[in-house]
């Protein structure tokens, strides 16, 4: 699961929690300058900070192509 966690969003924490409960690896991406919650970081395999659209595209591509 790839989650964009720059801002709090209804239900997102629950979905990330279910992913963790079901052994689905979670990678969180957030915009530079924002701080994701510690609860989210706790269950994520990786938390990646991104600056702008191009970097976001590159990061998502890397995550998707990375073997699990």
């Amino acid at each position, binding site marked *: 699961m790839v989650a964009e966690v720059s801002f709090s969003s209804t239900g997102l924490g629950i979905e990330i*929690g*279910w992913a*963790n409960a079901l052994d689905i690896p979670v990678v969180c991406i957030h915009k530079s300058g924002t701080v994701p919650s510690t609860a989210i970081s*706790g*269950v994520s395999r990786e938390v990646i900070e991104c600056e702008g659209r191009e970097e976001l595209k590159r990061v998502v591509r890397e995550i998707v192509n990375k073997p699990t």
Partner: protein
Amino acid sequence: MIDIAKSLGNVQERKNRIKLLDKKHVSPLVGFVEQIRNERGLEKEIPDFDPLDGGVNAECLFLLEAPGPQSVQSGFVSRNNPDETAKNFFEFNQEVGIPRRKTIIWNIVPWYIGNGKRIRAAKKSDIQQGLPYLQQLLTLLPRLKIIVLVGKKAQTIKAELAEQFRNLTILTSPHPSPMFVNRKQQNRNIIFSSLRKVKDALDQNK
């Protein structure tokens, strides 16, 4: 992890319990609590579920009124909180033999209502605000079979719950506060009897 009455009065124990919040059985519930905190603009006033309980695997939900000051202090809705109500609840459950891993505790009003020293009684409007969160919680507990409404305030929604969740067994129990438990000798027996019904219902559903 020290699973004895009042163990969350110990700072190290609280730290250890926080570390368990990334365990699989509580992960979705951590997200749920965080969502309510965001929506209500609150933080510690909404304590987390206790990871020593069953989390999303719970078959029985004990629904109380609202978190007390000790719950806010410890950060958990827990039978291990350092107050007499939690101690009574811990001991009654242990004596009846209800496995805590099959249970979960929540409050009909999920946030602290009080002045920091003393909790006030939940008003109808508090309960109405808390109800949508209870409904959402129930969607996160796929194995749930029983809801125990603990205390008069929680019992005000009995008819509504029974109507809405016909597949669940709704039971009641008096609140295990020292004020009730110590008032008359027979009050202990009333709680025991209520909890035995819970245990029987859990055993029947095996």
